[in-house]
């Protein structure tokens, strides 16, 4: 029966010890522990919120970057295209010009060749005429007696050897 009857002495000591324990723990343990743990909890949730916000910012920043990059790429392509076009046209123009230049040189050369040739021909003609004259003189001196006949033969011969 005395198993289920409270004993005053133990009741007294339990009360004393438990109340002191409650007081001591509340002051020296629960207060600092809960303060630290809850403070840490708050700082963690703050940090998480900040991270979320930063992530959002990063996202928008990245989108902006992408946009800028895209624009830059397009501009570069444009510039490259322009440059290619310009260089092509420049090459084209240079080619054209050089062709013209060459044609001009060729033409000039042809002209000078022609005039040189004509001069050479004329000189050759006179030279040949002189030679033929000499030959004819020698032939005529030996073969011909009259001056009239000699002259007519000479002229006939000279026009025969004209190459033109």
């Amino acid at each position, binding site marked *: 029966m005395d198993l289920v009857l409270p004993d*005053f002495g133990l*009741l007294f000591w*339990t009360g004393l010890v*438990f109340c002191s324990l*409650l007081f001591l723990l509340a002051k*020296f343990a*629960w207060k600092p*522990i809960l303060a*630290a743990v809850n403070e*840490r909890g708050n700082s963690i949730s703050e940090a998480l919120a900040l991270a979320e916000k930063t992530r959002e910012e990063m996202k928008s920043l990245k989108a902006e970057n992408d946009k800028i990059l895209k624009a830059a790429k397009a501009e570069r392509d444009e510039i490259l295209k322009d440059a290619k076009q310009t260089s092509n046209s420049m090459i084209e123009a240079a080619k054209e010009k050089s062709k013209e230049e060459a044609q001009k040189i060729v033409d000039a050369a042809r002209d000078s060749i022609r005039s040189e040739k004509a001069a050479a021909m004329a000189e050759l003609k006179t030279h040949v005429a002189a030679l033929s004259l000499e030959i004819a003189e020698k032939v005529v001196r030996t073969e011909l007696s009259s001056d009239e006949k000699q002259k007519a033969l000479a002229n006939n011969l000279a026009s025969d050897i004209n190459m033109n």
Partner: protein
Amino acid sequence: MKKALTYILIALVFSMTSFASPANEHGKESHDEKEFDVSEMIMHHVKDAHEWHLWGPEHGGTSIYLPVILKTKEGVETFSSSNLYHGELVHDGENHYYKGVGPAQGFGMFHEKIYELDEHGKLHFEDGHVHGNIKPIDFSITKNVTSLFIGSFLVFIIMFSCAKFYKTNGAVAPKGIAKFMEPIILFVQDDIAKANIDEKKYKKFVPFLLTIFFFIWINNLLGMIPIFPGSANLTGNISVTFFLAALTLVIILVNGNKNYWGHIFAPPGVPKLLLPIMIPIEIVGIFTKPFALMIRLFANITAGHIIILALISIIFINKNVAWGALSVPMALFISILELLVAALQAYLFAMLSALFIGAAVEEAHH
């Protein structure tokens, strides 16, 4: 710091106690003659005592004799309990009691209860109870009180070192003992206090709930260690559970708001004619809640001690060590179950206290 505190504790324990010489031929003889009485052995272990029995036979084994403090009409008497246990063993029919010697002269102890002897130096019995002798108020540092000191000191040291960790390191991730204790502390704060008590009011009750949880848990675990400093059936003692339940009741009554008292003395939606029946029922209801707390903890822990002792006793009843093959695995199983019960009962006590407090401070919501 911790070391110094440990030394102080050890010194305190030793200064309070005196060791016995394990020589009492008379006691030994009677022990050998007697049949093994299971219920007496179990009751002896489950109840409080003025000595802390370590090993050896019940009479004349090795014990730590704890100090006895008595408040008599003349004043306060203090002496070591060895003066009772080593006193004269008197047989009075079925009953036998110790007669104190030395400073314990004039006192007799029957079933761990100390009485003043009459002018003839005797105790009088009637139906197996002491009758007619004056019973002084017993403030002795009994086995349970010693266990109470050790358990409370342990709780304080554990929590104090936790607090020290946070004090030196600030609000960082826990390490060491704090790492182990923090989830439990947070569990009590969030899942016991916050879950049952109004969001705005729960903070006030967290220290009480934390203290009651760890006090019960650590003392339950201490009780499961079969030898000093464990083995005392502290949380299975009705005085202890009575005090804890009474404290919960006081907290409920002090913090109960208008809404709480309104539900007791003017239950809403109840016809006026029924009030004479309802009000007494509600008033009884105030006390049944902590009463259930008291009985639940007491019965669970005491039952655990009794089952383990009974299972071990199988060997001694049959006087054959082979029975150990049956009783040891069963006792081991129950011991592991009791580890769970130790935590579960602490949780239930704190949880139900929080629930009752929560109901008492709840605001009306109509």
